[in-house]
């Protein structure tokens, strides 16, 4: 039940199946707030890529705009990255994968980026079952613009400014299952074991893999007005108000077993309940998955684990029946029909 501070893992001396060290999957130093859940996820991505053994040059990192969307700069420096415009990463990712089907596309987005401005592109990405690992670093607020509610903020949650969210939260996993994603999971940034496992599963999947990862914003969820606010903040309420001071937090770390429900205390003293799926849960039943999500929603729990999996559905690239090589680099003679073709067409127009 305790949330303990976590040390950054010491760099392993080992190498993976490609002969690469974990350091080969690192990125630039993060510029996020200390303790931000997003940094945990970056580290988990580094670990997962390392352990899974993906060639960095094959990876395309894509994102929108937001604190979360900055993170592709903080992992896999040896991979091409694309920080697009706010809420429209899915389309850019689609284009990139169409151009080069060999790319391993990893999209990182925020809840504002995905569920507010970006919900339209997200919905259509799901429908297309584009092969991509799509990670939502979900904190219920707009971090980068200083803490307004996003569309995944919980009904009744309260901002530093005292504003209360009166609108229902969008359940991204529910949407994903309903609209066609073929690998749908939820986890918590402070549970590296589960997150890394789910990521590796996603790398192996060939369709849209949505990872909705709860990733607390230490800065804008740390509101003194909350009755459950973090002790230190509470005591010094008067002082720290209005000063634009961002306290440093340590990352939260949790570990719990399949089937277990766990209450996790966040930096602001509030808490959420995580419920890990049973070990024998069968994620291939869509109907069951949706019902489970409804259940946990009613119980105000966050269901974690692999919620839904469909390995049979064709992904967009398969549907389009394109050649096996990347379209981007097909030689001219394969993309310019012969003169006889033009002659044909001209003849028909005469």
């Amino acid at each position: 039940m305790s949330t303990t501070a976590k040390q950054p893992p010491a760099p392993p001396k080992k190498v993976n199946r490609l002969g690469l060290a974990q350091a080969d999957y690192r990125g630039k130093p993060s510029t996020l707030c200390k303790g931000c859940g997003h940094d945990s996820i970056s580290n988990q991505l580094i670990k997962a890529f390392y352990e899974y053994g993906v060639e960095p040059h094959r990876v395309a990192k894509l994102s929108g705009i937001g604190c979360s969307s900055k993170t592709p700069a903080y992992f896999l420096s040896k991979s091409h990255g694309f920080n697009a415009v706010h809420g429209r990463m899915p389309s850019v990712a689609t284009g990139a994968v169409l151009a080069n089907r060999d790319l391993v596309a990893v999209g990182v987005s925020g809840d504002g980026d995905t569920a507010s401005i970006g919900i339209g592109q997200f919905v259509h990405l799901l429908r297309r079952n584009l092969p991509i690992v799509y990670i939502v670093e979900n904190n219920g607020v707009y971090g980068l613009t200083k803490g307004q509610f996003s569309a995944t903020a919980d009904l009744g949650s309260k901002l530093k400014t005292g504003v209360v969210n009166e609108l229902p939260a969008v359940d991204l996993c529910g949407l994903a299952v309903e609209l066609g994603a073929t690998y749908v999971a939820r986890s918590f940034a402070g549970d590296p074991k589960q997150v890394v496992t789910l990521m590796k599963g996603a790398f192996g999947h060939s369709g849209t893999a949505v990872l909705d990862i709860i990733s607390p914003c230490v800065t804008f969820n740390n509101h003194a007005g909350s009755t459950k606010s973090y002790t230190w903040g509470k005591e010094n309420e008067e002082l720290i108000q209005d000063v634009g001071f961002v306290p440093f937090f340590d990352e939260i770390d949790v570990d719990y077993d399949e089937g277990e429900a766990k209450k996790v205390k966040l930096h602001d003293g509030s808490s959420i309940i995580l419920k890990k799926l049973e070990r024998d849960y069968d994620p291939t039943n869509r109907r069951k998955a949706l019902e489970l999500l409804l259940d946990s929603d009613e119980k105000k729990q966050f269901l974690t684990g692999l919620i839904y999996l469909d390995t049979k559905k064709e992904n967009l690239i398969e549907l389009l029946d394109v050649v096996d090589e990347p379209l981007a680099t097909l030689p001219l003679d394969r993309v310019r029909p012969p003169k006889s073709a033009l002659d044909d067409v001209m003849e028909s127009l005469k």
Partner: protein
Amino acid sequence: MSTQTLVGEKESGAKPTVVNDFSIQVATINGSGSQSSNSVLMRAIFQMGVPVSGKNLFPSNIQGLPTWFTIRASKDSYIARKRDVDMLVAMNPQTAREDVQSLKPGSAVVYEQSLGLDNVRDDVVFYPVPFAELAKDVIDEPRLRKLLANMIYVGVVGQLLSIEKEEIRAAITKQFKAKAKAVELNVKAINVGFDYAEKKLTKADPLEIERMNETAGKILIDGNAAGALGSMFNGVTVVTWYPITPSSSLVESLIDYMKVYRIDEKTGKATFAVVQAEDELAAIGMVLGAGWAGARSLTSTSGPGISLMSEFVGLGYFAEIPAVIWNIQRVGPSTGLPTRTAQGDVLSTYLLSHGDTKHILLFPSSVAECFEFGGTSFDLAERFQTPVFVMSDLDLGMNIWMSDAFEYPEKPIDRGKVLDAEALAKVDDWGRYKDVDGDGIPHRTLPGTNHPGAAYFTRGSGHNDYAEYTERPEDYEKTMMRLSRKFDTARNAVPGPVLDEVDGAKIGLIGYGTTHWAIVESRDQLRNESDLAASYLRIRALPFNDELEAFVSKYDRVYVIEQNRDAQMLQLIRLELAHRPELLAKLSSVLHFAGHPIDARSVTEELVAQEYPAE
């Protein structure tokens, strides 16, 4: 003031004859199936060796509203719209009276007899035909009768204009391909019309089609199909779109062609990917993603779509990503007149997106140029690593134009400064945004490049030569000045203007896009009717190069002819020449912006009015 050639006046002393130089307008209701009749009629004239062009004026709905299809036959190969209609085929009760009213005296009217139009005026020639009745002789099925009534008018008109029946039959066979029953029924309908005209109508108008030899080797095609072909033959691989009139047919043609010509022989798989996006924001996002990853990628849209693409296009400019966007312009602002033509997006597309942005624009004037720019656009987009717009319009994109057959592109395509793993290995200290060549154009790598130094991070936020995030003033300024330099480099890389200068001319005309055809014809009118020689510069792209200034320098007065309210190209020309203020006083406008394609007569009248102002 008419430019029509009256032949035979002398010889016969009888009614003058107007040969191969007139317009036929068919007024129907959309969704009534007249499209194929119109095509057959046009094609038959074309097969008679007479230059033709066809313009469809259709409403923004699917069925039940007035539609006018106008076929122009022109022995002089003029293919702009002709302002006056010479023969009207009035099939639409809703507009018949108004259509007849708007004719000039002496025109001919073929009409459904039951409309009783002959009392509308008495200075035109009327040919009543009981189409509905006649259709009964062709087929029993009542719904099909409506269809075939349309084919009957082709017979009637064919007979009146002396079009050879054999050519009509051939046109039908071409139209309905191998479908025997359809060919048979339609030929039957033609015959009914021919017979009726022969027996019951007395020719009383001067119009006539006479065999010529001016169409050999020519093709009939719309600009959207031509653009599609040009793209297909120049290596397009990723296509995204969201349907919008008048641009949809570009991608729809492209799909049709690629399904035939771009399927890998060995595997039966496609060497392209087409995705219908959920909207235009997604369409351009996909194009940028694909362009970034190295594909030749295009989307096609029109005004509202261009506006929606605005944010992403700014990203393309600033992060330097190739993209090709066809803007098949229609009448704006807003939804405007979706089925009418305009050149109203010049300024807003040139400056699309917030901040200091400018884009390369291409202005095709002909279907052949649509074909050509299908390749040019990609070459420029990849060379300059930036979005390139092809500024077509509804008139060019959706109407039927006669053209020389397109030439097969023999030269290789230009994929720009891309470093693959091997090339990269030879480069010292590569930086994604470094200007090594002094032309403002940096070198890029593609994702997937198997080289440890190939990766870089693309972003629409501040970045330095090494694509690293920066907020430093000096880095920002450096990047922005390099982008300016790159745009300057483009001045002489884009298709330059086409000049046609006349010795002794005092005035110059400037046109672009579909204005071209009205200008070509108007120049002849000016010379023949008003003894006014006019040199001509046709703009083919933005940014301008120096030929513009040289041209304006040479003439006393220069007219910029365009199809928008705000003289958008003239404004850009003024800005381009602002350093030569003495040139500005020479410039004025001829504007035409009510949705119908510009015609020579209107241009001529306006030019004459400006050149010889009434006291």
